[in-house]
C-alpha cells in the first residue's frame, strides 16, 4: 500500500466524476484506482516527489470532486435546453 491514498464513496460520487477530476491533476501525479467494496481507493503517485504536497493535493481534489459533481448535474439538467438553444441559433436570422 502506498503512503498516499484518497478514498471516495462511490455511492455519493460517480466514478466517472472522480476520473474527470483526476485527469485535471495529471501534471502533478499519476493515479491508480481500485474498487474496494463501494469505496474507490485512489493511490496517488507523485510526478515530482520533491515538491509534492499530498495533503494540499488531496484537499484540492476532494473540493474539485464536489464541484465536478455539480457540473455533471447542471450538464444533465440543461442538456436538452443546450441542444435547443444551438438548434435555434443556427435556424435564426442574423440581426444587425
Amino acid at each position, binding site marked *: 500500500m502506498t503512503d498516499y491514498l484518497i478514498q471516495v464513496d462511490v455511492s455519493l460520487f460517480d466514478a466517472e466524476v472522480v476520473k474527470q477530476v483526476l485527469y485535471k491533476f495529471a501534471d502533478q501525479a499519476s493515479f491508480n484506482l481500485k474498487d474496494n467494496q463501494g469505496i474507490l481507493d485512489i493511490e496517488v503517485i507523485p510526478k515530482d516527489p520533491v515538491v509534492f504536497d499530498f495533503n494540499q493535493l488531496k484537499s484540492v481534489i476532494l473540493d474539485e470532486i464536489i464541484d465536478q459533481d455539480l457540473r455533471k448535474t*447542471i450538464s444533465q439538467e440543461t442538456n436538452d435546453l443546450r441542444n435547443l438553444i444551438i438548434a435555434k441559433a443556427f435556424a435564426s436570422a442574423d440581426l444587425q
Partner: protein
Amino acid sequence: MTSATKAKFKSLDAYKNAQGSFRFLPFKFIKLDNERYILTNIAGEFIVLDKFDFNKIRDRSLEMDSDLYHKLKSKHFIYDDSSTVAIDLLALKYRTKQSFLDGFTGLHMFVVTLRCDHSCPYCQVSRQNEDTEKFDMSEEDALKALLFTFKSPSPLIKIEFQGGESLLNFKLIQFIVLKAKEMNQSIGKQIQFVIATNLSPVNDEILDFCDEHEILISTSLDGPEFLHNKNRPKAGNDSYQRAIAGINFVKSKLGPDKVSALMTTSLESLKYPREIIDEYISQGFNAIFLRSLSPYGFAIKTKSFDMYNTDAWLDFYKTSLAYIIEINKNGYFFVEQYTALILQKMLTPFATGFVDLQSPSGIGISAIVFNYDGDVYASDESRMLAEMEDKSFRLGNLKENSYQEIITADILVDALQNTILEGVPMCSDCAFLPYCGSDPIYHAATQGDMIGHKAKSGFCKKNMGVFKHIIKLLEDDLEAREVMMRWIRV
C-alpha cells in the same frame, strides 16, 4: 374615483413566478480563487460569486426575487416559468458569437520568398543567402494561389505577404497585387493587402506602390535597441536602426495609421516588460500585442520547459498589463491587444476572428498559407512546424492538388472535428470555454498530438492565467476596469 381606479392595479407580487422554483440554463463554472467562483453561460456572459452565494445555487436555496436571483436571471444563468424568452435571446447571442465561422478563410498568406537578411534564432524558415532565387515563389504558383484565394466564399479577402523578408522579392508582390486587382474586377470582393517586412529593404519605389494600392505595412519591433538587435541578429547589427528608420519613412510617406508593429517574445524579452512598452510608446504606437513565447524554433518540445516558461510569461504579462494600465490612467491611450480581444469576448455580444482563440480551430478556416514552393499550409505556425521536419499540417501543393483536395485535406478535417472544445477532455466543462481556443499546431508541436493533455499544456495554463487575471482586474480594480472598458472596440 382615485381609489376605485387604483383597485384595478395589481401588486408586484402578482407578477412574480407563482411556481416558486427555478431551473438552470446551461452554464459552466470554475474557481477564481479560494473565495470566489466564475460562472459563464453558453453565450460567454460571466458573473463572479463568492462561495456563500455560489452554495445557494449548489443546494438550491436561492431566494426567489432576491438580488442574486435577479442577477442570475438577467444574465441568463437561470430561468423560471414566468419567462422563457431567455432561450430565444441565448440562441441569438450564441449565433452571433459563432458568426466568425461565416467568413471562411479571409486571410491568405503568400510566402513570396524565404530569403532574409536577418538570422533570428526563433525563425526556422528563413535562408540567409539572399541571392538564391530557388527560395522565391514563382509567378506560376502565385497565379495558382490567387485562383485559390478567389475561391474563398469570404467577401473580404486579406492578402498578406510574408517571408523570409518579403520585400526581397518585391517584383512578385507587385505582380500579385496587380493580378489580384485585375482578377477581382469581375468578382468584386473587398481586398486588403499587407506586407509583413523587417523594413530594411524599403525604398521610395516600394512605398509609392504601396501608396497607390493602399497596401498596409506590418513590421517587427521587439523592444529597445539592445533587445531588438539581440532578438534579431543581422550583419552590421543594425536591425533596430533600420526598423525605426523604416517605420518613420512609412509614416511620412503613407501616414501613421498605415504601419503596425508586431513583437516576438523571446526568453530575453521577458526581462524587459517596461522597456518594451516604453519603446512602443516612444515610436508613437497606441497598441502592443503581448504575444506568447513561440514553441517553434525554440527547443520547447519538452513539456516541463513549456510549463516553466509559461509561468515566466504570465509574470511578464501581468507586469506589462499593470504598467500599461498605469500609463492609461495617466492619460495616454495605449491598448494591450490580447487583453482587448479577450475583453471583447467577455463583455460584448460580438464574435472575434482571432485564430488562436477559436473553437473549432481557426486553422484553414481563418487563414491559409501558400509557401514559396507551392506547398499549402493551414497556418503560419504549421509552416514553421514543417521546417522542424513535421509536415503533418501540409494540406497539399498548388502544382499537384485542386482547391477541393486542399480544403478538404484529411488533416484539416481532423483538426476541425477534434478541436471543437465541447468534445475535448477538461475543456468541455471549463468555464473559459466561451473565450478559449484550441491551438492544434501548438499542441502538436509540444505534445505530439493536436488536442494534447490540457493539464500539461502551456497553452491552457497561459490562457487560464490570463482569463483569471483579467476577471480579477475587472472585479477588484475599478480604475483598471475603466481603462480596460475603453479598449473594447464597438
